[in-house]
């Protein structure tokens, strides 16, 4: 017996530093139609209140590892949107 892939994925989206300020949250739960990518998450966040101020390119990580816009997401993944790094 084969299970059908779920029709949606729900993602925990983390916002940091300036991005958290822009959106007014540091965590969002976002549900998207499957299959979804990091690019889809960024587009969804842009449509949130304050999200239009995000820069054209947004650095992202999935489950603690840097990812690209094309990275595919599974239900329950943690997607972090990372402002320009300024450590050191």
């Amino acid at each position, binding site marked *: 017996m084969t299970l059908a892939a779920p029709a949606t994925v729900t993602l925990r989206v*983390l916002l*940091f*530093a*300036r991005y958290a*300020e822009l959106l007014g949250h540091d965590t969002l739960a976002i549900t998207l139609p499957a299959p979804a990518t990091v690019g889809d998450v960024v587009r969804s966040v842009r449509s949130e209140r304050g999200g239009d101020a995000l820069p054209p390119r947004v650095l992202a*990580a999935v489950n*603690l*590892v*840097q990812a690209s816009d094309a990275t595919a997401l599974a239900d329950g993944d943690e997607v*972090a949107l*990372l*402002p*320009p*790094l*300024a*450590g*050191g």
Partner: protein
Amino acid sequence: MRDRVRLVSRPIDTAALAAEVVAPGRGGVVTFLGLVRDHHAGRQVIRLEYSAYAPMAEGELARIVGETEARWPVAVAVEHRLGELAIGDAAVAVVAAAAHRGDAFEACRHVIEEIKRRVPIWKREYYADGTVGWVDPTAAPDQAAAPR
């Protein structure tokens, strides 16, 4: 590995960090300390706050140290401080110890460059004029962090 890579919320003790990597066979020890500066892009900074995506930052620091110790015969220890810092406080310390000083210099330099490039840490500066800004090293020069 993990035990020599830390995010800390207290002052960095460089001597204690160095003690973690020195050994009788490692006679050359190179330390980089990054201190909070009093100006940035022409504005006077009075204090600042570092924040991080902590689990990813720790993982990335550990990967950087692992890659470095695979490439050079060195032992490396790193601490990055988070939270509120004053001018002159150490924000980051990298210690590389090796039998040969050239390896220690190259490894230490490599680690700090990779930290700046890869580790998810952010810096919020409080200026003398009462304003506040997030540091963006990728921004245009007129508003960018002064290179360091």
